[in-house]
Protein backbone atom coordinates (compact mmCIF):
# COMPACT_ATOMS: atom_id res chain seq x y z
CA UNK A 1 0.00 0.00 0.00
CA UNK A 2 1.23 3.47 -0.84
CA UNK A 3 1.84 5.50 2.30
CA UNK A 4 0.06 8.80 1.85
CA UNK A 5 0.65 10.13 5.36
CA UNK A 6 1.58 13.82 5.04
CA UNK A 7 5.27 14.43 5.66
CA UNK A 8 6.45 11.04 4.31
CA UNK A 9 8.92 11.18 1.42
CA UNK A 10 7.16 10.20 -1.80
CA UNK A 11 7.91 6.62 -2.65
CA UNK A 12 9.38 5.85 0.76
CA UNK A 13 6.91 3.03 1.30
CA UNK A 14 7.13 1.58 -2.19
CA UNK A 15 8.35 -2.02 -2.45
CA UNK A 16 11.89 -2.76 -3.66
CA UNK A 17 12.57 -3.29 -7.33
CA UNK A 18 11.88 -6.96 -8.11
CA UNK A 19 14.85 -9.16 -8.96
CA UNK A 20 16.18 -8.70 -12.47
CA UNK A 21 15.39 -11.61 -14.76
CA UNK A 22 18.73 -11.57 -16.55
CA UNK A 23 22.23 -10.20 -16.03
CA UNK A 24 23.18 -7.11 -18.02
CA UNK A 25 26.85 -7.80 -18.75
CA UNK A 26 29.32 -5.80 -20.84
CA UNK A 27 30.38 -7.62 -23.99
CA UNK A 28 33.39 -9.94 -23.72
CA UNK A 29 36.14 -9.80 -26.37
CA UNK A 30 35.30 -13.18 -27.88
CA UNK A 31 32.42 -15.66 -28.04
CA UNK A 32 31.91 -19.05 -29.65
CA UNK A 33 28.64 -17.81 -31.13
CA UNK A 34 27.38 -14.25 -31.55
CA UNK A 35 23.70 -13.85 -32.36
CA UNK A 36 22.66 -10.56 -33.98
CA UNK A 37 19.19 -9.47 -32.85
CA UNK A 38 17.61 -9.88 -29.43
CA UNK A 39 14.07 -10.64 -30.50
CA UNK A 40 12.26 -13.87 -29.68
CA UNK A 41 14.21 -15.85 -32.27
CA UNK A 42 17.64 -14.62 -31.18
CA UNK A 43 17.01 -15.23 -27.49
CA UNK A 44 15.38 -18.64 -28.03
CA UNK A 45 18.26 -19.72 -30.29
CA UNK A 46 20.74 -18.76 -27.58
CA UNK A 47 18.73 -20.68 -24.99
CA UNK A 48 18.69 -23.89 -27.05
CA UNK A 49 22.36 -23.53 -28.02
CA UNK A 50 23.11 -23.57 -24.30
CA UNK A 51 20.47 -26.02 -23.06
CA UNK A 52 20.33 -28.57 -25.90
CA UNK A 53 23.53 -28.26 -27.89
CA UNK A 54 26.06 -27.54 -25.13
CA UNK A 55 27.33 -24.16 -26.40
CA UNK A 56 27.17 -21.62 -23.58
CA UNK A 57 29.80 -19.06 -24.60
CA UNK A 58 27.15 -17.14 -26.51
CA UNK A 59 26.20 -13.47 -26.81
CA UNK A 60 22.96 -12.01 -28.12
CA UNK A 61 23.56 -8.46 -29.38
CA UNK A 62 20.50 -6.21 -29.49
CA UNK A 63 20.64 -2.66 -30.82
CA UNK A 64 17.74 -1.48 -28.68
CA UNK A 65 16.09 -3.12 -25.71
CA UNK A 66 15.58 -6.85 -25.51
CA UNK A 67 12.57 -7.98 -27.57
CA UNK A 68 11.62 -4.39 -28.44
CA UNK A 69 11.24 -5.21 -32.15
CA UNK A 70 8.48 -7.38 -33.59
CA UNK A 71 8.58 -9.59 -30.53
CA UNK A 72 6.92 -6.86 -28.43
CA UNK A 73 4.58 -5.83 -31.26
CA UNK A 74 2.98 -8.97 -32.62
CA UNK A 75 -0.54 -10.25 -32.09
CA UNK A 76 0.69 -13.60 -30.69
CA UNK A 77 -1.30 -16.01 -32.82
CA UNK A 78 0.10 -19.54 -32.61
CA UNK A 79 -1.03 -22.24 -35.03
CA UNK A 80 0.42 -24.93 -37.28
CA UNK A 81 -2.29 -25.42 -39.92
CA UNK A 82 -0.13 -24.53 -42.91
CA UNK A 83 -0.61 -26.27 -46.25
CA UNK A 84 2.74 -27.68 -47.34
CA UNK A 85 4.59 -30.54 -45.65
CA UNK A 86 7.71 -28.42 -45.10
CA UNK A 87 5.70 -25.69 -43.34
CA UNK A 88 3.55 -27.94 -41.21
CA UNK A 89 6.76 -29.77 -40.23
CA UNK A 90 8.41 -26.73 -38.65
CA UNK A 91 5.24 -25.06 -37.33
CA UNK A 92 3.91 -28.27 -35.77
CA UNK A 93 7.30 -28.94 -34.17
CA UNK A 94 7.03 -25.45 -32.73
CA UNK A 95 3.46 -25.95 -31.50
CA UNK A 96 4.45 -29.17 -29.75
CA UNK A 97 7.26 -27.25 -28.05
CA UNK A 98 4.80 -24.52 -26.97
CA UNK A 99 2.78 -27.24 -25.26
CA UNK A 100 5.65 -27.95 -22.86
CA UNK A 101 7.35 -24.56 -22.80
CA UNK A 102 6.07 -23.12 -19.51
CA UNK A 103 7.40 -26.19 -17.76
CA UNK A 104 10.69 -26.17 -19.64
CA UNK A 105 11.37 -22.49 -18.88
CA UNK A 106 9.79 -22.55 -15.44
CA UNK A 107 8.01 -19.35 -16.30
CA UNK A 108 4.33 -18.47 -16.95
CA UNK A 109 3.63 -17.61 -20.60
CA UNK A 110 -0.20 -17.32 -20.57
CA UNK A 111 -0.16 -19.90 -23.36
CA UNK A 112 -3.83 -20.50 -24.11
CA UNK A 113 -4.95 -23.12 -26.63
CA UNK A 114 -8.29 -21.50 -27.39
CA UNK A 115 -8.35 -22.59 -31.04
CA UNK A 116 -8.23 -20.61 -34.26
CA UNK A 117 -10.88 -20.21 -36.95
CA UNK A 118 -9.70 -19.27 -40.46
CA UNK A 119 -12.85 -18.03 -42.18
CA UNK A 120 -13.88 -18.84 -45.73
CA UNK A 121 -15.95 -16.21 -47.57
CA UNK A 122 -16.18 -17.54 -51.11
CA UNK A 123 -16.49 -20.88 -52.88
CA UNK A 124 -12.80 -20.75 -53.74
CA UNK A 125 -11.99 -20.08 -50.06
CA UNK A 126 -14.12 -23.09 -49.11
CA UNK A 127 -12.30 -25.38 -51.55
CA UNK A 128 -8.86 -24.13 -50.50
CA UNK A 129 -9.78 -24.45 -46.83
CA UNK A 130 -10.98 -28.04 -47.17
CA UNK A 131 -7.88 -28.93 -49.09
CA UNK A 132 -5.76 -27.43 -46.30
CA UNK A 133 -7.73 -29.34 -43.64
CA UNK A 134 -7.06 -32.58 -45.51
CA UNK A 135 -3.37 -31.78 -45.89
CA UNK A 136 -3.18 -30.96 -42.18
CA UNK A 137 -4.83 -34.20 -41.15
CA UNK A 138 -2.41 -36.17 -43.34
CA UNK A 139 0.44 -34.40 -41.56
CA UNK A 140 -0.93 -35.18 -38.11
CA UNK A 141 -1.99 -31.58 -37.49
CA UNK A 142 -5.39 -31.21 -35.78
CA UNK A 143 -7.78 -29.56 -38.21
CA UNK A 144 -11.42 -29.69 -39.11
CA UNK A 145 -13.85 -27.93 -41.41
CA UNK A 146 -16.82 -26.25 -39.70
CA UNK A 147 -19.81 -24.69 -41.44
CA UNK A 148 -21.23 -21.25 -40.64
CA UNK A 149 -23.36 -22.56 -37.76
CA UNK A 150 -20.27 -24.30 -36.39
CA UNK A 151 -18.44 -20.96 -36.50
CA UNK A 152 -21.29 -19.34 -34.57
CA UNK A 153 -21.15 -22.09 -31.98
CA UNK A 154 -17.41 -21.62 -31.42
CA UNK A 155 -17.54 -17.83 -31.50
CA UNK A 156 -21.11 -16.55 -30.93
CA UNK A 157 -20.32 -12.90 -31.76
CA UNK A 158 -19.36 -13.62 -35.39
CA UNK A 159 -21.94 -12.28 -37.83
CA UNK A 160 -22.92 -15.20 -40.07
CA UNK A 161 -25.75 -13.37 -41.84
CA UNK A 162 -25.67 -13.98 -45.62
CA UNK A 163 -26.51 -10.30 -46.01
CA UNK A 164 -22.99 -8.91 -45.89
CA UNK A 165 -20.38 -8.13 -48.51
CA UNK A 166 -18.25 -11.14 -47.52
CA UNK A 167 -20.59 -13.72 -45.92
CA UNK A 168 -19.07 -16.38 -43.66
CA UNK A 169 -19.46 -19.74 -45.43
CA UNK A 170 -17.50 -21.74 -42.88
CA UNK A 171 -14.00 -22.01 -41.49
CA UNK A 172 -11.09 -24.26 -40.80
CA UNK A 173 -10.67 -24.89 -37.09
CA UNK A 174 -7.50 -25.87 -35.28
CA UNK A 175 -8.37 -26.51 -31.62
CA UNK A 176 -4.74 -26.68 -30.41
CA UNK A 177 -3.93 -23.23 -31.81
CA UNK A 178 -4.07 -20.16 -29.58
CA UNK A 179 -2.16 -17.23 -28.14
CA UNK A 180 0.54 -16.52 -25.54
CA UNK A 181 1.87 -13.38 -23.89
CA UNK A 182 4.78 -12.25 -26.06
CA UNK A 183 6.63 -10.30 -23.35
CA UNK A 184 6.53 -13.25 -20.99
CA UNK A 185 7.86 -15.52 -23.71
CA UNK A 186 10.83 -13.21 -24.29
CA UNK A 187 11.45 -12.78 -20.57
CA UNK A 188 11.12 -16.50 -19.88
CA UNK A 189 13.71 -17.35 -22.54
CA UNK A 190 15.98 -14.48 -21.51
CA UNK A 191 15.95 -15.52 -17.86
CA UNK A 192 16.68 -19.15 -18.69
CA UNK A 193 19.39 -18.31 -21.24
CA UNK A 194 21.11 -15.89 -18.88
CA UNK A 195 21.10 -18.49 -16.11
CA UNK A 196 22.93 -20.89 -18.46
CA UNK A 197 25.66 -18.29 -19.07
CA UNK A 198 24.42 -16.56 -22.23
CA UNK A 199 25.28 -12.83 -22.34
CA UNK A 200 22.28 -10.74 -23.40
CA UNK A 201 23.72 -7.38 -24.43
CA UNK A 202 21.36 -4.49 -25.05
CA UNK A 203 22.10 -1.14 -26.74
CA UNK A 204 24.68 -2.94 -28.84
CA UNK A 205 24.20 -2.34 -32.56
CA UNK A 206 26.07 -4.47 -35.06
CA UNK A 207 27.54 -2.16 -37.70
CA UNK A 208 29.75 -4.59 -39.62
CA UNK A 209 30.65 -8.25 -40.10
CA UNK A 210 34.34 -9.21 -40.25
CA UNK A 211 34.95 -11.81 -42.92
CA UNK A 212 38.44 -13.17 -43.58
CA UNK A 213 39.25 -15.79 -46.20
CA UNK A 214 35.59 -16.63 -46.71
CA UNK A 215 35.00 -17.15 -43.00
CA UNK A 216 33.29 -14.87 -40.50
CA UNK A 217 35.57 -13.98 -37.58
CA UNK A 218 33.62 -11.35 -35.67
CA UNK A 219 31.34 -8.35 -35.63
CA UNK A 220 31.79 -4.59 -35.40
CA UNK A 221 29.50 -2.88 -32.94
CA UNK A 222 28.95 0.54 -31.38
CA UNK A 223 30.56 -1.04 -28.29
CA UNK A 224 33.66 -2.25 -30.06
CA UNK A 225 34.80 -5.27 -32.05
CA UNK A 226 33.71 -8.68 -30.83
CA UNK A 227 35.41 -11.82 -32.15
CA UNK A 228 33.25 -14.85 -32.83
CA UNK A 229 33.66 -18.42 -34.01
CA UNK A 230 30.23 -18.29 -35.56
CA UNK A 231 27.73 -15.49 -36.21
CA UNK A 232 24.00 -16.06 -36.50
CA UNK A 233 21.71 -13.38 -37.91
CA UNK A 234 18.23 -13.02 -36.38
CA UNK A 235 17.52 -9.37 -37.16
CA UNK A 236 14.00 -9.81 -38.65
CA UNK A 237 13.06 -6.50 -40.36
CA UNK A 238 16.72 -5.45 -40.60
CA UNK A 239 18.00 -8.71 -42.08
CA UNK A 240 18.80 -7.18 -45.49
CA UNK A 241 20.83 -4.43 -43.83
CA UNK A 242 22.81 -6.79 -41.60
CA UNK A 243 23.42 -9.48 -44.26
CA UNK A 244 24.55 -6.66 -46.54
CA UNK A 245 27.54 -6.14 -44.20
CA UNK A 246 28.88 -9.45 -45.57
CA UNK A 247 27.85 -8.67 -49.13
CA UNK A 248 24.93 -11.09 -49.02
CA UNK A 249 21.85 -10.01 -50.97
CA UNK A 250 18.55 -11.39 -49.68
CA UNK A 251 15.22 -11.77 -51.49
CA UNK A 252 13.47 -9.78 -48.78
CA UNK A 253 11.36 -6.65 -48.65
CA UNK A 254 10.79 -4.99 -45.28
CA UNK A 255 7.25 -3.75 -44.75
CA UNK A 256 5.42 -1.99 -41.93
CA UNK A 257 2.86 -4.25 -40.26
CA UNK A 258 0.37 -2.63 -37.90
CA UNK A 259 -1.85 -3.85 -35.11
CA UNK A 260 -4.17 -2.27 -32.58
CA UNK A 261 -6.01 -2.90 -29.33
CA UNK A 262 -9.34 -1.74 -27.97
CA UNK A 263 -10.03 -0.65 -24.43
CA UNK A 264 -10.50 -3.47 -21.88
CA UNK A 265 -13.79 -5.31 -22.28
CA UNK A 266 -15.62 -8.16 -20.59
CA UNK A 267 -14.77 -11.53 -22.12
CA UNK A 268 -16.71 -11.64 -25.41
CA UNK A 269 -14.36 -13.45 -27.74
CA UNK A 270 -13.44 -17.00 -26.70
CA UNK A 271 -11.17 -18.01 -29.60
CA UNK A 272 -9.05 -16.53 -32.41
CA UNK A 273 -10.74 -15.54 -35.68
CA UNK A 274 -8.79 -14.80 -38.83
CA UNK A 275 -10.13 -13.67 -42.18
CA UNK A 276 -7.89 -13.18 -45.13
CA UNK A 277 -10.61 -11.92 -47.44
CA UNK A 278 -11.61 -9.00 -45.23
CA UNK A 279 -8.09 -8.54 -43.89
CA UNK A 280 -8.54 -8.73 -40.18
CA UNK A 281 -7.85 -11.13 -37.37
CA UNK A 282 -8.98 -10.83 -33.78
CA UNK A 283 -8.47 -12.35 -30.39
CA UNK A 284 -9.10 -11.07 -26.88
CA UNK A 285 -6.11 -10.75 -24.58
CA UNK A 286 -6.28 -12.09 -21.04
CA UNK A 287 -6.56 -8.53 -19.71
CA UNK A 288 -9.58 -7.90 -21.95
CA UNK A 289 -8.34 -5.85 -24.90
CA UNK A 290 -9.47 -6.93 -28.34
CA UNK A 291 -6.24 -7.45 -30.28
CA UNK A 292 -6.52 -6.94 -34.04
CA UNK A 293 -4.15 -7.00 -36.93
CA UNK A 294 -4.33 -6.45 -40.66
CA UNK A 295 -2.18 -6.96 -43.72
CA UNK A 296 1.11 -5.17 -44.34
CA UNK A 297 1.38 -1.62 -45.62
CA UNK A 298 2.18 -1.99 -49.31
CA UNK A 299 5.40 0.01 -49.41
CA UNK A 300 8.80 -0.86 -47.98
CA UNK A 301 9.27 0.75 -44.59
CA UNK A 302 11.70 0.68 -41.71
CA UNK A 303 9.80 3.27 -39.67
CA UNK A 304 7.85 0.98 -37.29
CA UNK A 305 4.68 2.78 -38.26
CA UNK A 306 2.22 2.67 -41.14
CA UNK A 307 -0.64 4.55 -42.75
CA UNK A 308 -3.94 5.23 -41.03
CA UNK A 309 -6.11 4.05 -43.92
CA UNK A 310 -4.88 0.51 -43.22
CA UNK A 311 -6.24 0.78 -39.67
CA UNK A 312 -9.48 2.28 -40.94
CA UNK A 313 -10.08 -0.60 -43.39
CA UNK A 314 -9.17 -3.17 -40.79
CA UNK A 315 -11.68 -1.69 -38.34
CA UNK A 316 -14.47 -1.59 -40.90
CA UNK A 317 -13.77 -5.26 -41.69
CA UNK A 318 -13.82 -6.09 -37.98
CA UNK A 319 -17.15 -4.34 -37.47
CA UNK A 320 -18.74 -6.20 -40.37
CA UNK A 321 -17.62 -9.52 -38.88
CA UNK A 322 -18.27 -8.54 -35.26
CA UNK A 323 -21.07 -5.96 -35.11
CA UNK A 324 -20.74 -5.73 -31.29
CA UNK A 325 -17.32 -4.09 -31.75
CA UNK A 326 -18.97 -0.94 -33.12
CA UNK A 327 -19.07 0.60 -29.65
CA UNK A 328 -15.57 -0.37 -28.58
CA UNK A 329 -12.96 2.38 -28.45
CA UNK A 330 -9.59 2.10 -30.07
CA UNK A 331 -6.92 2.39 -27.42
CA UNK A 332 -3.62 2.17 -29.24
CA UNK A 333 -2.11 1.34 -32.64
CA UNK A 334 1.51 0.51 -33.45
CA UNK A 335 3.67 -1.05 -36.11
CA UNK A 336 6.62 -3.38 -36.56
CA UNK A 337 8.93 -4.11 -39.50
CA UNK A 338 8.40 -7.48 -41.14
CA UNK A 339 10.78 -9.12 -43.61
CA UNK A 340 8.76 -10.70 -46.40
CA UNK A 341 10.06 -13.31 -48.88
CA UNK A 342 8.59 -13.90 -52.36
CA UNK A 343 7.08 -17.26 -51.31
CA UNK A 344 6.03 -16.17 -47.80
CA UNK A 345 8.18 -18.87 -46.25
CA UNK A 346 11.18 -18.22 -43.99
CA UNK A 347 14.88 -18.52 -44.75
CA UNK A 348 16.89 -20.59 -42.27
CA UNK A 349 20.16 -21.29 -43.97
CA UNK A 350 23.89 -21.62 -44.14
CA UNK A 351 25.53 -18.99 -46.36
CA UNK A 352 28.51 -18.75 -48.72
CA UNK A 353 30.45 -17.27 -45.81
CA UNK A 354 31.46 -20.12 -43.54
CA UNK A 355 30.36 -19.74 -39.93
CA UNK A 356 27.64 -17.24 -40.90
CA UNK A 357 24.02 -18.40 -40.52
CA UNK A 358 20.76 -16.79 -41.58
CA UNK A 359 17.36 -16.81 -39.93
CA UNK A 360 14.95 -14.35 -41.52
CA UNK A 361 11.95 -13.95 -43.78
CA UNK A 362 9.40 -14.98 -41.17
CA UNK A 363 7.44 -11.94 -42.25
CA UNK A 364 4.08 -11.59 -40.59
CA UNK A 365 4.09 -14.98 -38.88
CA UNK A 366 7.25 -15.79 -36.95
CA UNK A 367 6.09 -15.44 -33.34
CA UNK A 368 4.46 -18.87 -33.37
CA UNK A 369 7.74 -20.31 -34.62
CA UNK A 370 9.82 -18.93 -31.74
CA UNK A 371 10.47 -22.26 -29.93
CA UNK A 372 10.73 -24.25 -33.17
CA UNK A 373 13.19 -21.82 -34.77
CA UNK A 374 15.15 -21.48 -31.59
CA UNK A 375 15.66 -25.24 -31.52
CA UNK A 376 16.29 -25.90 -35.23
CA UNK A 377 18.40 -22.79 -35.84
CA UNK A 378 20.52 -23.65 -32.80
CA UNK A 379 21.00 -27.19 -34.18
CA UNK A 380 21.91 -25.75 -37.59
CA UNK A 381 24.55 -23.50 -36.00
CA UNK A 382 25.92 -26.17 -33.66
CA UNK A 383 26.24 -28.83 -36.40
CA UNK A 384 27.06 -26.48 -39.28
CA UNK A 385 24.38 -28.36 -41.21
CA UNK A 386 20.68 -27.64 -41.65
CA UNK A 387 18.34 -29.26 -39.14
CA UNK A 388 16.04 -31.58 -41.19
CA UNK A 389 12.97 -29.49 -40.33
CA UNK A 390 14.46 -26.36 -41.89
CA UNK A 391 16.42 -28.02 -44.70
CA UNK A 392 13.84 -26.88 -47.28
CA UNK A 393 14.12 -23.25 -46.22
CA UNK A 394 17.52 -22.49 -47.74
CA UNK A 395 18.46 -19.21 -49.37
CA UNK A 396 19.36 -21.29 -52.41
CA UNK A 397 15.72 -22.17 -53.13
CA UNK A 398 15.31 -18.78 -54.82
CA UNK A 399 18.00 -19.89 -57.29
CA UNK A 400 16.79 -23.45 -57.86
CA UNK A 401 13.10 -22.61 -57.89
CA UNK A 402 12.21 -25.08 -55.11
CA UNK A 403 9.93 -22.55 -53.40
CA UNK A 404 7.60 -23.34 -50.50
CA UNK A 405 4.71 -21.25 -51.70
CA UNK A 406 2.59 -20.64 -48.62
CA UNK A 407 1.34 -17.29 -49.92
CA UNK A 408 -1.32 -18.49 -52.29
CA UNK A 409 -1.76 -21.87 -50.73
CA UNK A 410 -2.63 -21.20 -47.11
CA UNK A 411 -4.23 -17.90 -48.13
CA UNK A 412 -3.66 -16.57 -44.64
CA UNK A 413 -1.04 -14.39 -43.10
CA UNK A 414 0.31 -14.66 -39.55
Amino acid sequence: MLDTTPGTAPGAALPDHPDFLWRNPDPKKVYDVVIVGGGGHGIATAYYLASRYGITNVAVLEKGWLAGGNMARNTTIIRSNYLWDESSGIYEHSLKMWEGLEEDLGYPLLFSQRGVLNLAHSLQDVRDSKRRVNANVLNGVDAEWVDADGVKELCPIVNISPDVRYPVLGATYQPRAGIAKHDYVAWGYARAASALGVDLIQNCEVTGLDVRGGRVVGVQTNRGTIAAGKVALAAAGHSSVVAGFAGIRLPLQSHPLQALVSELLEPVHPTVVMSNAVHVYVSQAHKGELVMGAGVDSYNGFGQRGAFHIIERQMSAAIELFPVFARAHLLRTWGGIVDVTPDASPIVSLTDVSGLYLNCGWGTGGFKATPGVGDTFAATIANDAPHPLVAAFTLDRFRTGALVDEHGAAAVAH
Partner: protein
Amino acid sequence: MQLIECPNCGKREEIEFHYGGQAHIAYPEDPAATTDHEWSDYLFFRDNPKGPFAERWYHGGGCRRWFNAVRDTTSYRFLAVYQPGERMPALPGTRVTR
Protein backbone atom coordinates in the same frame (compact mmCIF):
# COMPACT_ATOMS: atom_id res chain seq x y z
CA MET B 1 -2.76 11.08 -44.33
CA GLN B 2 0.37 11.34 -46.43
CA LEU B 3 0.13 13.49 -49.55
CA ILE B 4 2.00 12.17 -52.57
CA GLU B 5 2.94 14.48 -55.39
CA CYS B 6 2.00 12.88 -58.71
CA PRO B 7 4.15 14.42 -61.46
CA ASN B 8 0.99 14.72 -63.58
CA CYS B 9 -1.70 15.67 -61.06
CA GLY B 10 0.08 17.29 -58.15
CA LYS B 11 -0.48 16.49 -54.48
CA ARG B 12 -3.07 13.80 -53.77
CA GLU B 13 -3.88 11.54 -50.86
CA GLU B 14 -1.93 8.31 -50.45
CA ILE B 15 -5.02 6.08 -50.87
CA GLU B 16 -5.21 7.11 -54.55
CA PHE B 17 -1.88 5.38 -55.23
CA HIS B 18 -0.55 1.85 -55.60
CA TYR B 19 2.96 0.77 -54.84
CA GLY B 20 5.04 -0.91 -57.52
CA GLY B 21 8.31 -1.78 -55.79
CA GLN B 22 11.83 -1.00 -56.95
CA ALA B 23 12.17 1.16 -60.07
CA HIS B 24 14.57 0.76 -62.99
CA ILE B 25 14.28 -3.04 -63.23
CA ALA B 26 14.09 -3.90 -66.91
CA TYR B 27 12.57 -7.14 -68.17
CA PRO B 28 15.45 -9.22 -69.57
CA GLU B 29 15.76 -8.64 -73.30
CA ASP B 30 16.01 -12.33 -74.05
CA PRO B 31 14.62 -14.20 -71.02
CA ALA B 32 15.38 -17.61 -72.52
CA ALA B 33 19.05 -16.67 -72.76
CA THR B 34 19.45 -15.76 -69.07
CA THR B 35 21.26 -18.06 -66.66
CA ASP B 36 19.30 -19.41 -63.68
CA HIS B 37 21.15 -16.90 -61.56
CA GLU B 38 20.22 -13.93 -63.77
CA TRP B 39 16.62 -15.06 -64.11
CA SER B 40 16.17 -15.60 -60.36
CA ASP B 41 17.76 -12.20 -59.76
CA TYR B 42 15.13 -10.67 -61.99
CA LEU B 43 12.28 -12.64 -60.40
CA PHE B 44 13.05 -12.58 -56.70
CA PHE B 45 15.84 -10.21 -55.73
CA ARG B 46 15.22 -6.52 -55.12
CA ASP B 47 17.10 -3.93 -53.13
CA ASN B 48 15.73 -3.32 -49.64
CA PRO B 49 17.58 -0.24 -48.41
CA LYS B 50 16.97 1.56 -45.16
CA GLY B 51 16.95 5.12 -46.53
CA PRO B 52 16.38 6.58 -50.01
CA PHE B 53 14.87 4.11 -52.48
CA ALA B 54 13.92 4.62 -56.14
CA GLU B 55 10.52 3.01 -56.63
CA ARG B 56 7.51 2.87 -58.91
CA TRP B 57 4.09 4.25 -58.01
CA TYR B 58 0.79 4.10 -59.88
CA HIS B 59 -1.75 6.89 -59.60
CA GLY B 60 -4.87 4.72 -59.93
CA GLY B 61 -7.23 7.34 -58.48
CA GLY B 62 -6.11 10.09 -60.88
CA CYS B 63 -4.19 10.09 -64.15
CA ARG B 64 -3.89 6.28 -64.02
CA ARG B 65 -0.25 6.46 -65.00
CA TRP B 66 2.93 5.03 -63.51
CA PHE B 67 5.71 7.30 -62.28
CA ASN B 68 8.90 6.95 -60.29
CA ALA B 69 9.74 8.38 -56.91
CA VAL B 70 12.64 8.48 -54.52
CA ARG B 71 11.30 7.91 -51.04
CA ASP B 72 13.10 7.52 -47.73
CA THR B 73 12.04 4.14 -46.32
CA THR B 74 12.69 5.30 -42.74
CA SER B 75 10.87 8.65 -42.69
CA TYR B 76 8.54 7.71 -45.61
CA ARG B 77 9.18 11.21 -47.05
CA PHE B 78 9.11 11.55 -50.82
CA LEU B 79 12.39 13.16 -51.88
CA ALA B 80 11.65 13.41 -55.62
CA VAL B 81 9.15 12.29 -58.24
CA TYR B 82 9.95 11.82 -61.93
CA GLN B 83 8.63 10.24 -65.11
CA PRO B 84 9.30 6.63 -66.06
CA GLY B 85 12.20 6.44 -68.48
CA GLU B 86 13.91 9.41 -66.83
CA ARG B 87 17.05 8.92 -64.81
CA MET B 88 16.78 9.02 -61.06
CA PRO B 89 17.56 12.62 -60.00
CA ALA B 90 20.82 13.05 -58.11
CA LEU B 91 20.11 13.62 -54.44
CA PRO B 92 22.72 14.26 -51.80
CA GLY B 93 23.66 11.01 -50.04
CA THR B 94 21.75 8.85 -52.50
CA ARG B 95 23.09 6.04 -54.62
CA VAL B 96 21.61 5.60 -58.07
CA THR B 97 20.19 2.09 -58.33
CA ARG B 98 21.09 0.37 -61.59
